[in-house]
């Protein structure tokens, strides 16, 4: 089993850790550069809450912009990989989204938002052709053939919806090499720069959404932007068997229950590959028995064994390469067996790898 003496997650390595851990207990979980997106202190909306929005009266976006914003809302649903809120248009929705010259964004903002979790939000998009100090705003969707230098409305809408959820701007490497890890970005890119038209949350957006809103299911994969410890326990239905008796081994795999893991701490981890290993009592070398099938309870894995001699068992979960959880090994469970009482003893039933010996009671 993985343990961490300081009970701090492994995903915050480096020199920044000590300073960040000095943040008070009421502050959000520490976020360092290049990890999951930071989050707003105001908290999330309800899990799976449907946030209905309407077009702001007198500031209704043109058709092409509306279509892209609606697509951005759908992108949230399809890529949130968590129980984060979803966004749905309704003519009388309480949350206004506006477009145009009345946008209340700062002087350099192409879009902006306010959030009052868990209740409401607002959003604005600047109008096509708005003249900034840095240039003239071009929305790609306003062209038949989008020119270089345009901003993709759907991408920017997904960015803003991500903010509304709870995400603050991703902390990039100074080089920006990890730009694609997040849509909720420190600076917006234009066509044809890499990522300008990303229409799914990046892995570090998803990581924070998962931490704040929890997983869609216990078998869903954790974002690779996370690095969560797991804990694996193993129990036996009996630790002493009659000769040739059967024992049921049950492994339980969970995300380690650290406070800094927010909603993810203690989650059962289902649908993974957990392997049962054994060794004869007194022998140091482990052998694999096989994969443990899923048990009736989420995150459990069960396998029965018939024994004619004593065995140590342990369960092993190897860290997957495609998600952000670490591997774990359970503690050892010893299951002993009575010596053969009837003669002749069925030697053929013995495990060929094990020496025949009496078990001390």
């Amino acid at each position, binding site marked *: 089993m993985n343990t961490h003496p300081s009970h701090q997650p492994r995903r915050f390595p480096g020199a920044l850790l000590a300073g960040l851990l000095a943040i008070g207990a009421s502050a959000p979980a520490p976020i360092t550069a290049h990890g999951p997106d930071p989050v707003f202190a105001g908290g999330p909306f309800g899990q799976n809450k449907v946030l209905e929005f309407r077009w702001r009266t007198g500031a209704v976006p043109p058709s092409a912009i509306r279509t892209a914003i609606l697509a951005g809302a759908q992108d949230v649903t399809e890529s949130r990989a968590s129980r984060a809120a979803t966004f749905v248009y309704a003519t009388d929705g309480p949350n206004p989204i506006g477009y145009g010259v009345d946008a209340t964004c*700062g002087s350099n903002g192409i879009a902006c938002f306010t959030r009052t979790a868990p209740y409401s939000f607002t959003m604005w998009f600047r109008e096509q052709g708005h003249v900034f100090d840095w240039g003239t705003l071009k929305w790609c969707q306003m062209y038949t053939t989008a020119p270089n230098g345009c901003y993709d409305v759907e991408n920017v809408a997904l960015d803003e919806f991500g903010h509304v959820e709870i995400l603050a701007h991703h902390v990039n490497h100074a080089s920006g090499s990890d730009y694609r890890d997040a849509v909720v970005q420190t*600076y917006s890119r234009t066509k044809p720069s890499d990522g300008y038209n990303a229409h799914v949350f990046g892995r570090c957006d998803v990581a924070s959404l998962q931490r704040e809103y929890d997983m869609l299911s216990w078998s869903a994969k954790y974002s690779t932007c996370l690095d969560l410890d797991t804990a694996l326990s193993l129990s036996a239905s009996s630790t002493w068997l009659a000769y040739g008796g059967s024992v049921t081994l049950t492994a339980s795999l969970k995300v380690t229950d650290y406070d800094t893991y927010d909603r993810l701490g203690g989650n059962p981890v289902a649908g993974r590959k957990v392997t049962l290993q054994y060794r004869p009592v007194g022998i140091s070398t482990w052998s694999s028995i096989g994969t443990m099938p899923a048990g009736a309870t989420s995150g459990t894995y069960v396998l029965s064994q018939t024994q004619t001699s004593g065995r140590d068992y342990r369960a092993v979960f190897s860290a997957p390469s495609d998600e952000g959880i670490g591997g774990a090994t359970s503690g050892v469970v010893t299951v002993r067996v009575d010596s053969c009482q009837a003669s002749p003893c069925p030697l053929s039933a013995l495990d060929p790898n094990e020496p025949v010996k009496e078990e001390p009671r």
Partner: protein
Amino acid sequence: MSLYASARRRAGARVPRATRAATAAFGLLLGAAACSGSGPTGAPASATPSAAPVSATPGPSITAPTPAAASPVTSEPALIEPPDAELQSGAVVGIGALGSFSFRETGQSAPWLAGTPIALPEAAPIEVDLDPALPVDSWTAAAVPSTKLQEIAAVSLGEGTGPIRFDGPAAGSWSVMVAVRFGDGLGSASYFWAVTAE
């Protein structure tokens, strides 16, 4: 919160944002709304997922969407802008142009900006201070050639967790961005300067 409504300007500093004074006044309102935003139903995250699914393959259909709560907010919140960032290098002083930010439950998206023009010696030591001062969790500084703002092939100038101190870019025309993550969970902001280094 009033500190945001009274951003002080030093003599000779540039003031790139005309909207600050107007929007900052609304900060008090939103600040109050934001503070109430973590009310009973918004309480985050315990280590135990009390509202989490329990079956082996739960999905969104198992837990009904949370009904929309009636909003206690009667007036619409406004954007709150983060503090100014003042770059100093020798006698040169310039307030950065504010780009994207996420601050006190509000924020905006912006491109990599050209920034506030300043002239510096090559690789000049730079320090950036916030006005009004706020704790800084971490920061990064990077530069992009001014002719390649859209390519965003940035050169790192430094990063850290304490005071914002780094050496400026090599000779040339650059857009320098300093991205600051504020302490106390207040958010982050990016500031830009158009640096001519000679």
